[in-house]
């Protein structure tokens, strides 16, 4: 009897333990759909207005792929707020999707984890060769000198969006081409209930993108050629200060936007509360807020002087989404086939058209959809004047540390505290010291 009782206890414990361990596993996202060559799991990033819209866009394309290859793709659209954490969790557990989208600025950081399949020549050959893609897009898919960790899928660049009616009301005929002109125009456009320029003080990545471009324009950078942080270099400090000064000194930005972080800027623009925004591929969002194509103009992002180009004439970061294959995938062949499908000319045109982005595949760019007045400045920026963010393993930390510093500076500016070269430098110094662990 004692034996029976003990056995009963032990078996109960085991059953409970097994049950609880099962709970801990979470949803079943095992790689390779359990190793079957006929299924793939795909984590798509949220490119459309919402997750449901993305599902509606992608599902018919995945059906086409299934028809062509017999491989069924299980789609999950992961919101941006979760995507990086989900990827980190997948990396540490080894339980991830087969194919996934990543923000292209994460490429080097994720490359360093070793979780992603390196795209060497043989893999590139399977999808038609590396030459099919624009250089700047491939350049933002991993650290220089290493096989890229991903393949470019959608490319984006920053442009200056302006409200045509507000410009006409203020008597401005052409969009500004330099920052001085932008500030002058911005002052004309700023009055009660309306501001010249819209930005998002608490939006870390937005802060980073602009601070990076402005630092470039001041001849600085946040990393030196050896990959060491140089946040307090004069160029970087000047770049950050110029960005915050649009609110602090020039006062062409509404102080309320210091707490914006969730694209409220775009709503303000659509409502006519803001005359200009610097944004990547915002046209489709403006239209979803009820604006017509003729309501807003698209121009290149201003430079300090002259015209956009390379080096100090940079006017955009290379923004975009890359597609990566999870190294733990049990179906690498199928995954590569899927990447080939998604980067084929036909799919590139369909998907980039829907999402309002630019195809990183050169041959797809000739489609007329990417030569409209709204798209041309973006395409030209990518071709001539866009620079990838630093491709270093600590890029994610950089975005957080410097983005938080800039957020704090905007909070200071909004509260009426002075923002000086010294205070900017101090904030960036603190950010840099947090990097050196």
């Amino acid at each position, binding site marked *: 009897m004692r034996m029976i009782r003990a056995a009963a206890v032990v078996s109960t414990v085991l059953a409970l333990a097994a049950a609880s361990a099962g709970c801990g596993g979470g949803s079943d996202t095992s790689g390779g759909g359990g190793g079957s060559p006929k299924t793939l799991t795909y984590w798509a990033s949220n490119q459309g207005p919402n997750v449901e819209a993305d599902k509606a866009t992608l599902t018919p394309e995945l059906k086409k792929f299934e028809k062509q290859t017999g491989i069924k793709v299980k789609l999950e659209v992961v919101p941006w707020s979760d995507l990086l954490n989900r990827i980190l969790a997948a990396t540490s557990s080894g339980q991830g999707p087969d194919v996934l989208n990543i923000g292209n600025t994460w490429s080097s950081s994720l490359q360093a984890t070793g979780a992603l399949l390196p795209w060497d020549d043989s893999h590139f050959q399977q999808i038609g060769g590396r030459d099919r893609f624009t250089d700047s897009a491939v350049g933002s898919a991993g650290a220089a000198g290493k096989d890229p960790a991903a393949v470019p899928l959608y490319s984006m660049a920053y442009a200056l969006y302006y409200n045509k009616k507000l410009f006409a009301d203020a008597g401005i005929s052409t969009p500004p081409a330099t920052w001085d002109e932008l500030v002058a125009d911005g002052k004309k456009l700023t009055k009660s209930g309306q501001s010249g320029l819209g930005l998002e003080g608490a939006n870390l990545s937005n802060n980073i993108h602009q601070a990076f471009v402005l630092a470039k324009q001041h001849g600085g950078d946040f990393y030196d050629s050896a990959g060491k942080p140089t946040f307090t270099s004069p160029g970087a400090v000047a770049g950050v200060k110029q960005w915050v000064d649009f609110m602090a000194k020039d006062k062409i930005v509404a102080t309320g936007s210091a707490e914006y972080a969730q694209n409220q800027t775009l709503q303000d623009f659509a409502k006519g509360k803001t005359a200009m925004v610097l944004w990547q591929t915002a046209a489709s969002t403006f239209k979803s807020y009820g604006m017509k194509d003729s309501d807003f103009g698209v121009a290149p992002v201003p430079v300090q002087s002259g015209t956009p180009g390379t080096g100090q004439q940079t006017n955009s970061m290379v923004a975009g989404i890359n597609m990566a294959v999870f190294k733990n995938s049990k179906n690498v062949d199928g995954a590569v086939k899927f990447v080939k499908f998604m980067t084929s000319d036909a799919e590139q045109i369909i998907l980039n058209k829907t999402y309002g982005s630019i195809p990183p595949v050169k041959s797809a760019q000739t489609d007329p959809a990417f030569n409209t007045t709204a798209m041309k400045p973006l395409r030209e920026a990518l071709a001539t004047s866009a620079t990838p963010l630093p491709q270093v393993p600590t890029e994610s930390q950089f975005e957080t540390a410097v*983005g938080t510093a800039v957020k704090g500076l905007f909070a200071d500016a909004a509260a009426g505290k002075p923002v000086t070269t010294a205070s900017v430098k101090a904030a960036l110094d603190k950010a840099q010291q947090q990097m050196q662990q």
Partner: protein
Amino acid sequence: MTPPTTAAADESQAAAADSGPPRSASGRRGGPGRRPRQAGRLRNLSLPYMLLLPAILLELLVHLVPMILGIVMSFRGITQFFIRNWTQAPWAGLHNFRIALDFNAPIGQALLHSFFVTCAFTALSVGLCWLLGAFVSLMMQDSFRGRGVLRTLFLVPYALPVYAAVITWAFMFQRDNGLINHVLHDQLHLTSDRPFWLIGDNSFYALLIVSVWKGWPFAFLIITAGLQNIPRELYEAAAIDGAGMWQQIRRITMPSLRPVNQVLVLVLFLWTFNDFNTPFVLFGNSAPEAADVISIHIYQASFVTWNFGSGSAMSVLLLLFLLVVTAVYLLATSRRRQDV
């Protein structure tokens, strides 16, 4: 646990012997004399532990194993280069702790700052939760029309899902479109300009308000339950002796509530000190400096900068601090109780 009496042991042994034929054979094998009784006593002593075993094993699995893993991680240099296979991460010795505790360097300074912010936030939040909870439950003690409805209403914040509740607060705290500023500035004209609540120094108060709003119903619930156990005769006797309401509260209610309060304050302290959801939903993953509480800070040190070794070291320090506080608190309060 009270030791089983001999009578009870005999009884249960008899019951066990009756329960099935196979068992009786083994029971009889012991033969006459003291042995079977001793075996029975042993069995009865071990039974409670056997019954506890599943719970203990689950507790180990759910709580202790992750905790030990966290402690192990804190001694390793787990950065993004090793998260794929963290058993390969190099041993870092006390490096992570040294960095976290070097209060002259930025990382240590930031941690210390965050620690002080958390202490101030916790003290205020727990204090206010308790005061509000105690005050309202005393007011609700005597029955009146609508008491049940009010009691239910007061518990709503506690019953709401945290995310839904806090995100609503985040909307209300928005500077330009939020309800708070609409009332304070547009309607009451209390402020000359619209204040920011989610960035800058006010964020501390925003966090405190939400935390108290969310936490006080629990204090109310527990104290209300505690009040039901105080015999009415005590109050009646005190009233006859001429004690006023204030004296009744001081001399009868509070001392009677002491054991309840002891647990309540401890639980509130631990919950508030560790609260991650409220600040995270309010501020996102980079909290303003004034509201940079320790849970968010550690999250940032590990998840956002991908340095899990460093984050684990900070968590271990937090664990040690909370253990010490809890131990001291329990020692101090239970000694006081013995004195009474």
